[in-house]
């Protein structure tokens, strides 16, 4: 959750409760828009939004590691892939979706935990390089383990079909499934952040030595964060297969990890909204810039990335938060002077 430092209301009581009402109304409006969206928009638009939610979950996982505890990871795409292959391979072998989901996320979590335990001693670039190895090794591995992964061609599946009584098309149904799944994991993350886990993670991020002195079991929390991060990556992978019904080794590449990290920076660290905004940037901007040639689209994407970072170095979510607060303050001051 973005840490919002509430400036003291210009008027007592009236200001803050008005702001809370405003936020509640905005939330309700957003949920309504979200619920109605797929019923009125094209399958392509639905897929775009579904993908945004998918990547938002993966980026949230990354935020748990990078934003909450200050560790670094270039391996999120590997966990994404593990989750995706779990559900896809399961489906190919006739397993129900929830079994594949469990398998995928469990394997992702276990691998994450195994990596995290020795890696907890590492800092900065050493940790980055170790996590970088994950997707670099995973891609050729996936190509070779044909029995499980279908080799270089990947796996095509048909899962999560819309039940007849809903009258929804496949893409609409999957939109809702992914949306609800994402909402659940986001709510879980928000809850974690608020409690003692959040406080412990903050302490570790700010100063590990000090955190240890304060009695925080640093290694345990770092491993927990890493495991959570990889589980979220796995969940995102499962949701990905639900959305596009396909997985191949090319999805796990290092480039995806890097793009997720970029999305995290663009959205803003330690902000749930930021994760969604970062995912939106990743999904939408290449479409906008992908007009003429690959080279041109790549250049425009890179320039957009640079422009966003230059204008909003802390990310879009904090910048939006500032802007909204300024407008709210101005309105309160006007209301106060008006009375």
């Amino acid at each position, binding site marked *: 959750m973005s840490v919002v430092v509430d400036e003291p209301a210009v008027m007592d009581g009236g200001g803050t409760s008005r702001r809370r009402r405003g936020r509640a109304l905005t939330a309700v409006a957003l949920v309504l828009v979200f619920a109605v969206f797929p019923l009125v928009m094209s399958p392509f638009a639905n897929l775009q939004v579904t993908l945004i939610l998918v990547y938002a979950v993966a980026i949230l996982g990354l935020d748990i590691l*990078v934003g909450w505890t200050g560790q*670094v990871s270039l391996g999120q795409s590997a966990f994404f892939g593990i989750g995706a292959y779990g559900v896809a391979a399961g489906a190919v072998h006739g397993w129900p979706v929830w079994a594949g989901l469990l398998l995928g996320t469990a394997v992702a979590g276990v691998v994450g935990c195994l990596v995290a335990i*020795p*890696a907890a*001693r*590492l*800092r*900065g*670039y*050493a940790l*980055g*390089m*170790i996590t*970088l*190895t994950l997707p*670099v*090794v995973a*891609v*050729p591995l996936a*190509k*070779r383990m044909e029995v499980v992964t279908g080799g270089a061609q990947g796996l095509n599946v048909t899962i999560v079909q819309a039940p007849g009584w809903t009258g929804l098309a496949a893409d609409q149904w999957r939109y809702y499934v992914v949306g609800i799944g994402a909402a659940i994991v986001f709510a879980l993350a928000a809850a974690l952040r608020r409690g003692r886990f959040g406080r412990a993670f903050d302490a570790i991020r700010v*100063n*590990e*030595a*000090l955190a240890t*002195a304060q009695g925080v079991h640093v290694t345990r929390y770092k491993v927990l964060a890493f495991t959570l991060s990889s589980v979220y990556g796995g969940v995102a992978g499962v949701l990905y297969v639900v959305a596009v019904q396909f997985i191949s080794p090319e999805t796990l590449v*290092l480039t995806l990890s*890097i793009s997720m*990290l*970029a999305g*995290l*920076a*663009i959205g803003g*660290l330690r902000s749930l909204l930021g994760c969604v905004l970062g995912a939106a940037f990743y999904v939408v901007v290449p479409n906008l810039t992908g007009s003429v*040639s*690959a*080279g*041109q*689209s*790549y*250049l*425009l*994407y*890179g*320039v957009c*990335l*640079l422009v966003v*970072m*230059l204008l909003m*170095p*802390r990310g879009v979510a904090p910048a939006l938060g500032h802007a909204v607060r300024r407008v709210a303050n101005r309105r309160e001051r006007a209301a106060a002077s008006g009375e």
Partner: protein
Amino acid sequence: MNLLQQVLDGLSSGSVYATLALALVLVHRSTGIVNFAQGQMAVISTYVAWTLYDAGVPVWGAIGAAIVLSLVVGALVERFLIRRFEGGEPLAAIVVTVGLLISVNGLVSLIWGTVLKQFPSAFPPGGVGSGSGGTIGYGTLGTIGALLVVVLALNWLFRHTRLGLAFRAVAANPESSALLGLPVGRLLMLGWGLAAAVGALAGCLVAPKLYLAPEMMDSVLTYALAAAVLGGLNSALGTVLAAWFIGVVENLAGTYVSFVGGDMKIAVPLVLMVLILLLKPEGVFGHKEVRRV
């Protein structure tokens, strides 16, 4: 191909990785940032050299001109793009270099297209006999030699010149250096300029073998990062040795271990790097950071 040839080929690739890794170390020592775009900057420098060569400039002239141009452009990149991210949130700086990577990649594709291009070798064809009837190419030896020249030149610059001392002072403590009257900003630009120049050399050395393409330096960058991190992001000697190690292992693994195919080659040195880092997190030649509460 006998073992000696394999090892020397590995040292040659390793020398290219080392050259780019030294660029990474230069940037990290001066501005505390890891430049993920270092490889891509090398690529565009190499394309510029190719364009000059294509227009009739002799190879060494083209490479030299590209190196000088890179020095200038690298300095400008630090001044106008990177400067405001120094000393801030590390993730932001990393993502800016990623943005630079993507932009330069796109720019290269746009200007020169994606078709592979032949790049001339800076060294004469042929080579030295290596016993059992094989040859060790002049290119292989020349690349190793070029790295050694770079290492010696940088060492001389930093240890025996006033400019080098100024740079080391700024890299270690910018505020103190400012109080001594040193032009901190300009010295940081020098760090990036030198790095870009060194990177350009790396690109021109590897291009004849890998063929010039926008993604040419992608795996070189990965290896260079690994070598730099193994060297503690600090020590030139550690970085070079790590890079040579990586080059030789990669080459031998690709040839002698059957499970390892072309795309798996990169995994072997990386996995070894992981093992080393797990044992010694600060890198083989790095120093443990003393963190005070």
